[in-house]
């Protein structure tokens, strides 16, 4: 088993993409907040917003670089580990990937240069424009990659041909392929998840300063705006989730059945809040709202929802794993709604930052991990729910793996990635921790010279 190319490649892909997917949601969420903070600076001309913008740019930079570095891996893994899949879908999957390069990455990386290094070099309006372009680029990049992935989930606008002895899918209508049935709803879902994750990072760091009674004005303003974004995104998420469920029920009924642990086709299908599926007895036990699933899918409590029994067992995803990751994700979504609504209410009553509520602030510090976990669980549910298909209904994962690679090769690369990523992860945490402990002050032009600035000045004077 240890030399099984398919299994090792799946583990490697899951590991590398889940590591990578820690970072882009931060970039997307933080990118939007940077646009808001910097716009406030240009509108109000208040120094505090300059401080806020410049501090979060530093955090953004450290996050962005790890995201880019780990992202290159994803693109090439399709060719290295999944080359048979790549031959099958190259016509279709490659196009959004190329579009991502042309329309998103160049935009993002080009204006990143101005965002990171341009503060004293370009006019403020130009800098804001660059910030907007970077934020836009990161969302466009999300759009194209979700388009590519969504086609795997809900393939349309293709035909199967055999060229030079190789079976493959070719596009019949490009825009129909791009706006495939699940693309827009999944994109919205991903972006909202990213906004929540970025906002929670800002709230976590701000809460830390408030508890430490440092940079209080800075932290309160940062927090309040991020809270607004987190609340809007958290509230919108169930609406999108509802639309999403309808698409899944139509296109990937086995996946929906696994999400809900539904073995038998039924009307008045229940929606589990928490539960356990038993593969032996084929029963799901737990706390459920009767009829709610039917209502979510059909808008009718009596609507019929297909159970797993409708499909051959070799086409079932791993039911309990998918069930649990999906339910945990939904539960976390509820936590975000509850926490942000309570905080908004307290903010309105001007109590949020008062000592009585400092326990809530303390909770916000570790809470940054929750959206990260929720986004990872969402990815796990979506991708494991699609198994055993790599392209729903068209190509099995076992048929997509490269033919010319060997188990030991994949094992070597997997071990290498694990070692390098563990190192990177801890360095990233360390660097973030340092930036956060430095705080925003060392960036304000000439007010206080922090550790960084002093050492930089010495560098410039020191002759070598």
């Amino acid at each position, binding site marked *: 088993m240890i030399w099984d190319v398919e299994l090792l490649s799946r583990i490697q892909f899951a590991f590398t993409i889940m590591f990578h997917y820690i970072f882009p949601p931060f970039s997307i969420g933080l990118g939007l907040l940077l646009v808001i903070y910097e716009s406030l600076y240009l509108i109000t001309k208040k120094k505090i917003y300059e401080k806020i913008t410049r501090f979060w740019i530093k955090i953004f930079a450290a996050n962005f670089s*790890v995201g880019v570095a780990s992202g290159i891996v994803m693109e090439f893994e399709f060719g290295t580990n999944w080359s048979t899949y790549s031959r099958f879908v190259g*016509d279709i999957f490659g196009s959004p990937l190329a579009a991502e390069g042309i329309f998103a990455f160049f935009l993002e*990386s080009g204006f990143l*240069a101005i965002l990171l*290094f341009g503060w004293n070099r370009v006019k403020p309006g130009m800098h804001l424009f660059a910030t907007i372009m970077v934020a836009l680029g990161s969302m466009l990049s999300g759009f194209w990659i979700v388009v590519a992935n969504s086609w795997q989930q809900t393939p349309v606008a293709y035909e199967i041909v055999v060229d030079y002895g190789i079976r493959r899918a070719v596009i019949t209508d490009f825009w129909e392929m791009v706006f495939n049935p699940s693309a827009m709803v999944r994109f919205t879902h991903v972006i909202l998840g990213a906004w929540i994750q970025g906002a929670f990072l800002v709230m976590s760091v701000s809460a830390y300063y408030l508890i430490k009674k440092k940079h209080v004005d800075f932290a309160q303003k940062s927090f309040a705006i991020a809270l607004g974004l987190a609340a809007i995104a958290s509230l919108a998420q169930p609406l999108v989730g509802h639309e999403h469920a309808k698409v899944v029920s139509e296109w990937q009924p086995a996946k929906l059945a696994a999400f809900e642990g539904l073995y038998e086709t039924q009307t008045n299908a229940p929606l589990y809040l928490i539960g356990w599926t038993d593969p032996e007895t084929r029963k799901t036990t737990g706390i459920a709202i009767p009829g709610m699933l039917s209502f979510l899918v059909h808008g009718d409590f009596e609507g019929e929802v297909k159970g797993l029994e409708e499909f051959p067992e070799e086409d079932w995803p791993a039911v309990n794993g998918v069930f649990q990751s999906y339910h945990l994700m939904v539960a976390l979504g509820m936590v975000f709604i509850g926490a942000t609504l309570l905080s908004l209410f307290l903010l309105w009553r001007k109590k949020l930052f008062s000592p009585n509520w400092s326990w809530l602030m303390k909770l916000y510090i570790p809470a940054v991990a929750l959206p990260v976990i929720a986004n990872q669980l969402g990815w796990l549910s979506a991708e494991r729910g699609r198994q055993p298909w790599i392209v729903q209904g068209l190509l099995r994962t076992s048929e997509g793996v490269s033919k010319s690679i060997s188990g030991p090769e994949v094992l070597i690369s997997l071990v290498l990635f694990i070692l*390098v990523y563990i190192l*990177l992860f801890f360095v990233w945490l360390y660097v973030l921790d340092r930036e956060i402990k430095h705080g925003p002050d060392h960036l304000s032009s000439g007010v206080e010279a922090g550790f960084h600035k002093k050492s*930089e000045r010495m560098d410039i004077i020191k002759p*070598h």
Partner: protein
Amino acid sequence: MDFNVVWYILVGVLLIGYAILDGFDLGVGILHLRSKGDHNRRILMNAIGPVWDGNEVWLITAGGALFAAFPNVYATAFSSFYLPFMMLLIALIFRAVSIEFRSKEANPRWRGFWDKGFSIGSIVATLLFGIAIGNVVMGFPIGGDMEYQGNFFDLLNPYSLMAGFFALTMFALHGGIYLNMKTEGALQKRIQGWIKVNYWIFVVFYLIFSGLTLYLKPEMIANFSFGKIDLPGNKHELVENHQTLISVFAWSIVLLNVLAIANIPRMLSKGREGWAFISSASMIAAIVMLFALGIFPNLMVSNLDPSFNLDIYNAASSGYTLKTMAVLAAFGLPFVASYTIIIYWTYRGKVKLDESSY
């Protein structure tokens, strides 16, 4: 219009863009450990600071374009190059995060670690690119099912290793010429000293490498021969009908290449830093084009049977996709060009360290 040829050119343009742009920042990485002292090393790193990330996007986009336009080449190349590609990815990761993390601590051991990460990452990546090109010239053991039949050690033949070292000398020279534009004073003097030495090492490698290519793979010159030399296997109609055009173009690239190489020391001695860089960029563009012309219309050559070659027809996506993507690229590339120019214009001139520097 033959969109297969259009995509051969477009992927070529992306790879040339990558070789020129990431070429100089890889070159800066290769030279990095030769510079001494924290201040100098910061200057070197900040010389590429705002642009290295954008430069790497050329590789990512070339990869995406290859996937979209020639999926069979994408699939065969990356799965046959499995371990070298994994090493390349790890080298690129290290290099990228080293640049970002180095400045976060003043501790010399911390900075020393990331200095080494940056430099070794750049050296390994460049070597592997060279080895990849070397293998493309030598041919792969590709079977009739388009799958690689060889093993890891087949990729490490002497010619390909030589190609790896050739790439190192080329990017080290190019990076030095870039740094010459971005530095001043004593540091610039030292860099000019490196360039003088690197230039002659490069010329020696260039001559040996060209000779070796012609000796081992005389068929690389078929497209330069006005149809006088025949490649084994069936010739494609397209090449058959345009032999004169292809050969005239090929020889003009040879001329461009020689002139560009000769122009480098001339411009350096006149102190025209920008023109020296343009010469070195033209030299790299010409060298990439010479390789492309050598194998055209193939993308990967099989050394088992010429009919197993992957060319711009049997490896390509459908005509509809090639056409649609070409329209999208035509729409997108002017934007790419315009903000690339804006960024390089914004950061023109000598490197000045300030509070946003690395």
